């Protein structure tokens, strides 16, 4: 760098500093001019506005998108709800007003005053909600007596209406006021305190579609709070409606079949992944979560041993029990360890070292091959096969059927279940894998767990030659004119290249479970359609004595998975009945009833039209027995 350059740079620097100062002065002058404009020219208008500053902002909530079933039947919609609000700085006689409101709404004065106090930290022109859910008569009363009750205001908000009460409540979810914690999340940065948002299920996961954009009117009112003019208006944009994959009639039949049992059912379309019914029993009433939950009902929900608030189909992790035997069998077939003629002599137990592993049938099944082992759910057959496969091979095939990882149904909180491997156990517990544990896994017990959703997907995979379409619950998103904005096409989740012959052998076993003598799943048999399935029992307590066996919470879970029709599968279903003890006795009849309904709705099975039509499904399809 030459000296000359530096000097030139220096001189220029001085000149540029001068220009920058001038530029700064110009910006100051702009500010000054604007101040002059506001404080000299606009002063009268703005002064008047400040003196009658009765600009009021009236939020107009957007109505939430509807939830519609696959056939266009509305499941959840909105209805207008009226709230009573008070604008503190316009109240002339507080005592009179509180007295009146308490009398008309039959509310406690103290409670009203407490609500009023709570809103006091905010600006005085912001309405404080005193009561929600007013009746038409109450609304009329306040509108007529508007003059004597200065400062009151009726707000109309669309709220959720649940004509089917608790139907599919876990899947649909509930809405509630946005919490302070949620307001700090970027997703909710455009929300205001008091807004309703989806809190669980579809309502939560599709919040951004369902919510819509709230609008509002900026109005000017006179000293008595009467409307003068609208200054600015933004119309609310209603939320988008969702067409679900659920069939509401099948859903109703599902929940009816479950009765008051603690249970979960997932039924899905094998060829698209569309969930046809999705139940976690018992359900809850979502409407109660929107307003003020009555404490006694909340207590009931919490104390119920059947856990009505938990989404068992999505978050319940159960050992799949014998419903997993198809996977062990496929692993054995694919690895060349067995074929259809391989036989095992079941004596009722299997020895490994010093340990004895028992078959559920203590007398033993005698000589069994793959088909009869599946049909009669022989444990010894699968102990021996599992021992030869090793846990890591079993895990490899379990993962091909979607176990051990979240399926991605698109609803928050999905559990992944556990597909154990030797490395997994070492990492988790620091201890080595024992061979005996492999035997447990091979019959679906031990560390192995899966959600009902995963079991349905697994069954769909078996039915569909190893192809699993990603289970999903939303078919289409509609705009407010009913036009389709987005459609969810079937998405292939797993495509395991298994030999068709191997799959056929396993499926034949499942067909035998339901349709052959000595099959454990006869209760799911339909005479019009061929059903293939598998029972399962999942241990809750390992060693039980007589006393424990009686206690409800120690009873085994009953499982059943099935698909139908056998020759051209359409529907796959997984049923878990908590503490139902035997898959064949407690879960298979449920699956049978749901499948019957499915084929009735399709017109494949003709329904006898009788007067007792409504009760009919209660005592049907009990044929077969266990």
């Amino acid at each position, binding site marked *: 760098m030459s000296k000359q350059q530096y000097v030139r740079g220096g001189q220029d620097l001085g000149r540029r500093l001068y220009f920058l100062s001038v530029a700064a002065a110009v910006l100051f002058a702009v500010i000054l001019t604007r101040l002059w404009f*506001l404080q000299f020219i606009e002063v009268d208008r703005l002064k008047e506005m400040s003196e009658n500053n009765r600009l009021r902002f009236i939020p107009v909530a957007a109505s939430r998108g509807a939830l519609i079933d696959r056939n266009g039947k509305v499941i959840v919609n909105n209805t207008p709800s009226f709230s009573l609000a008070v604008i503190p700085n316009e109240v002339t006689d507080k005592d009179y007003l509180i007295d009146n409101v308490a009398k008309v709404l039959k509310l406690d004065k103290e409670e009203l005053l407490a609500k009023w106090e709570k809103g006091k930290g905010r600006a005085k022109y912001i309405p404080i909600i005193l009561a929600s859910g007013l009746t038409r008569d109450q609304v009329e009363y306040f509108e007529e007596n508007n003059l004597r009750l200065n400062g009151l205001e009726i707000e109309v908000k669309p709220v959720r209406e649940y004509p089917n009460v608790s139907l599919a409540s876990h899947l649909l979810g509930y809405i509630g006021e946005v919490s302070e914690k949620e307001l700090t999340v970027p997703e909710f940065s455009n929300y*205001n305190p008091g807004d309703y948002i989806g809190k669980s299920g579809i309502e939560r996961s599709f919040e951004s579609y369902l919510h819509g954009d709230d609008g509002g009117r900026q109005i000017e009112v006179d000293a008595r709070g009467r409307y003068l003019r609208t200054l600015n208006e933004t119309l609310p944009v209603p939320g988008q409606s969702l067409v679900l994959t659920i069939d509401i009639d099948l859903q109703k039949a599902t929940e009816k079949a479950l009765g008051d049992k603690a249970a979960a059912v997932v039924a899905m379309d094998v060829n698209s992944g569309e969930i046809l019914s999705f139940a976690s029993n018992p359900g809850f009433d979502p409407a109660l979560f929107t307003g003020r939950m009555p404490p006694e009902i909340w207590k009931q929900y919490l104390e119920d041993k059947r856990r009505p608030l938990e989404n068992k189909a999505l978050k319940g992790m159960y050992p799949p029990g014998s419903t997993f035997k198809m996977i062990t069998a496929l692993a054995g077939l694919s690895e060349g360890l067995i074929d259809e003629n391989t036989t095992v002599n079941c004596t009722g137990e299997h020895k490994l070292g010093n340990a004895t592993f028992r078959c559920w049938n203590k007398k033993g099944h005698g000589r069994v091959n793959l088909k009869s082992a599946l049909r009669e759910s022989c444990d010894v057959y699968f102990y021996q096969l599992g021992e030869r496969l090793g846990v890591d091979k079993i895990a490899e095939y379990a993962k091909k059927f979607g176990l051990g990882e979240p399926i991605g149904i698109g609803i928050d909180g999905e559990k992944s279940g556990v597909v154990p491997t030797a490395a997994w156990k070492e990492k988790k517990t620091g201890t080595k894998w024992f061979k005996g544990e492999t035997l447990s896994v091979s019959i679906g017990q031990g560390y192995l767990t899966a959600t009902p959703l995963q079991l349905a997907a697994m069954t769909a995979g078996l039915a569909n030659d190893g192809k699993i379409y990603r289970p999903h619950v939303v078919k289409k998103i509609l705009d407010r004119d009913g036009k389709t904005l987005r459609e969810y096409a079937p998405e292939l989740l797993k495509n395991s290249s298994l030999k068709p012959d191997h799959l056929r052998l396993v499926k034949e076993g499942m067909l035998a479970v339901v349709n052959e003598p000595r099959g454990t799943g006869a209760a799911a048999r339909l005479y019009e359609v061929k059903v293939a399935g598998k029972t399962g029992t999942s241990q809750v307590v390992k060693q039980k004595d007589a006393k424990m066996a009686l206690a409800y919470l120690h009873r085994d879970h009953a499982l059943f998975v099935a698909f139908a029709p056998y020759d051209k599968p359409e529907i796959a279903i997984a049923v878990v009945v908590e503490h139902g003890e035997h898959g064949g006795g407690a879960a298979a009849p449920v699956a049978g009833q749901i499948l019957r309904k499915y084929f009735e709705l399709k017109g494949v099975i003709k329904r006898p039209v009788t007067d007792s039509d409504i009760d009919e499904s209660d005592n049907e399809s009990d044929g077969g027995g266990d």
Partner: protein
Amino acid sequence: MIDRRLLTNFDWKIFLLITVIVALGVLNIHSASASYKLAGLSYSVKQIYWFMIGIMLVVLTCSVDYHILEDLSFWFYGILIVFLLLVLVVGKTTMGATRWLHLGFFTIQPSEPMKIVITVTFASFFTRVAPQSLLGLKEIIRPLAILMVPALLIAKQPDLGTAIMVCLVAGSIILAVGVRWSTMLTLILTAIPILFIAWNFLLRAYQKNRVLNFLSPERDPLKSGYHLIQSKIAVGSGGITGKGFMHGTQSQLRFLPEQHTDFAFSVFAEEWGFIGSIVVLALYFALIIWGMNVAARCNDRFGTLLAVGVTAMLFWHIIINIGMVIGLFPVVGVPLPLFSYGGTSMITSMIGVGLLMNINMRRFMF
């Protein structure tokens, strides 16, 4: 350790100037927060404490020769970048943005000191690294990279106000250093397609909405638009002489948002009118002109550029804050230096004032 010359050269006039601004600010905070229900110390008293801490920082900043910053600048820069990255990974989230970093015993907000550190870094860069001539395309790429790293990290938090401020300060220094016209033109021409691509392909719908609401608050009359209207009513209804101390209806009835911090000036303009507003503007203008004089009179390039950067920082805060309050600029969360309530802003501003005094005092030593 403290130089005797410090006392003789200490710029008492400027000290008086900032004391007057702070005093007006404290009075105004007192009025603006009169309607608040508070537990503990009032905002006005707390602001006085912050000012005292600020004075200590001014003395501290003055007592060390600013030239040591020339060597340390890249260290400061590096450490702050690490902190900014840490904020993104493990920062504490409040009000939807992650700006704070827990350091065990205390929390810091590394985006704020970046305003000063980018000044020091740029001053040092253009003194020691870059050729001291007008910037061409090749010379401007490195400083832009130095700027974009912290600016993008801060924008990601998201703290748009601070990110814009850091860019404006850096931009002002670049203008002082001087850029070739051709380079300027090229930069503008490249920026257009980048913005176009970002807008159409990178930003999601809600992000676009936020940008649009930011640029034109009327789109969103529920929030920023409402505040803007109320602020304009407050300033305008003050008229020539104002409604009188503690008598502003807009502020006492709390129609203004954050009226003791970002909207402090609209409270003042309502209560003191055009006359009061001119006084505050004049005080700020004096401060800026003094800052530019410090820059012009300084004999070394580092000191000049440092003074330009610090002055630019104060200047842009003033212009953007007042511009926002009177409806000239979009609503960005930028405080009015020395006037709005807030410890962070006070500390940054006072360190800036200290640096300017430091440079001013040492100009005779060359």
